[in-house]
């Protein structure tokens, strides 16, 4: 049900904002055109356009962009800071653990691999499974239940530290492949046999 809610939300935000922008544009154009066509309105236009050079611009017009820009700057600083610290977890494939520089067991890593068929186990609150990539495998323990579409035979990225040959994961994400297939019976069996071969 969460799925349906998210899907509906996505589409309504998309279509709704497009429609809103379109309507706002039409309304604004209509009122502008009306002002330009009426001669008495033009006098108002001329009046509006008579700020003497010495007069300061109204403070509201100066303040609003400044506030927006200020907010955006704060967000920008946050993003840069988080991106810098976040990318400290080094990205490794399973077969690179202990082989490639930076993928040794002394630091936090992000490991990419596919969940082995039949390896998924739920022990109390812990989830354990084996992930492999390019012939190498790595046991993973995760405290909790991974979200998303986590299942066997699916590529995942696990964040954590390798302790005694077991990856103690603190976070698991599903890496979706770029293949899309419609769901129907023959294809499911086909996909299951091919995904873990």
């Amino acid at each position, binding site marked *: 049900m969460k799925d349906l809610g*998210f899907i509906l939300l*996505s589409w309504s*935000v998309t279509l709704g*904002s497009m429609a809103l922008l379109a309507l706002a*544009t039409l309304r604004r154009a209509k009122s502008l055109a009306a002002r*330009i066509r009426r001669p008495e309105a033009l006098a108002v236009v001329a009046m509006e356009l008579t700020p003497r050079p010495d007069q300061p611009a109204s403070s509201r017009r100066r303040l609003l962009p400044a506030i927006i820009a200020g907010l955006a700057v704060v967000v920008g600083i946050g993003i840069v800071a*988080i991106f810098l610290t976040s990318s400290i977890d080094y990205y490794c494939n399973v077969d690179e653990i202990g082989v490639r520089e930076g993928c040794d067991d002394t630091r936090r890593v992000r490991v990419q691999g596919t969940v082995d068929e039949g390896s998924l186990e739920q022990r109390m609150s812990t989830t354990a499974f084996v992930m492999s990539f390019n012939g190498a495998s790595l046991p993973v323990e995760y405290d909790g239940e991974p979200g*998303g579409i986590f299942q066997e035979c699916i590529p995942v990225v696990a964040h954590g530290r390798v302790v005694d040959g077991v990856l103690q994961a603190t976070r698991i994400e599903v890496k979706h492949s770029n293949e*899309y*297939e419609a769901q129907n019976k023959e294809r499911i069996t086909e996909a299951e046999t091919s995904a873990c071969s």
Partner: protein
Amino acid sequence: MSDTTPTPHGAALLGAGTARRSLGTATPATRIIGLLTLATMTWVVVSAFFITSPDVVQGDSVRIMYAHVPAAWVAYLAFVTTAIASGISVVRRHRTLGFDRVAGASAEVGVLFMGLALVTGSLWGRLTWGTFWQWDPRLTTTLFLFITYVGYLAVRRIDASPERRAKRSAVLALLAVLEIPLVHFSVVLWRSLHQEASVLNPDGDVRLDGLMLFTLFSGVVAFTLGFVWLVIHRQRLQALVDLQGTVGLDSAIAARATEAVLR
């Protein structure tokens, strides 16, 4: 260094087509585009929700894709349009403000669509990756692109003469568009959680089921039509604002003349 042309008088500003009809932003051509947008959009929604089947792995959440991918595509298209229009307005010596208006309108619509791509992508990510946001190259570079164009619009909104606004924002747009290849290829360059492109990938294989591909394709068409409609209307709106300025200038000159005579 080019000097901008004096703003043309009166209704000539809106071009020949405008003089014939009442002042407004709609023409028969835009009405047709509008109707086409509505028709294709209806088909995309119906197909995305009721006709296509769920994906093998993603399940129903693939239905978000039909909005996410076209939105991202239109955002790129909008930013490239902005850059081209800005380039022309820099190179041409005369009548550059029209191109500046197109550049501004296109960036406005582009920011909207980029925002939509981020929102829908984030919702899709929660369903499939299990997380709303991830500091991953594609997502991060996309966010930077979004912020860049928010900054571009902030520069455009500042009270400056139209000529100064046009010049500075044109330079900004030409620099900002350099980021787009970085965003698109970030998935290939860095190892990323975001999947590589399914349709526009380097191998040339299309990794999509037939009907799904068709729905996605019609989504791109529908969103592009919507983009065209919005840009045409918004740039005409800006032209009306500028026309108000010119007409205002005419009456203001007249007003100053009486001011001098009265004294």
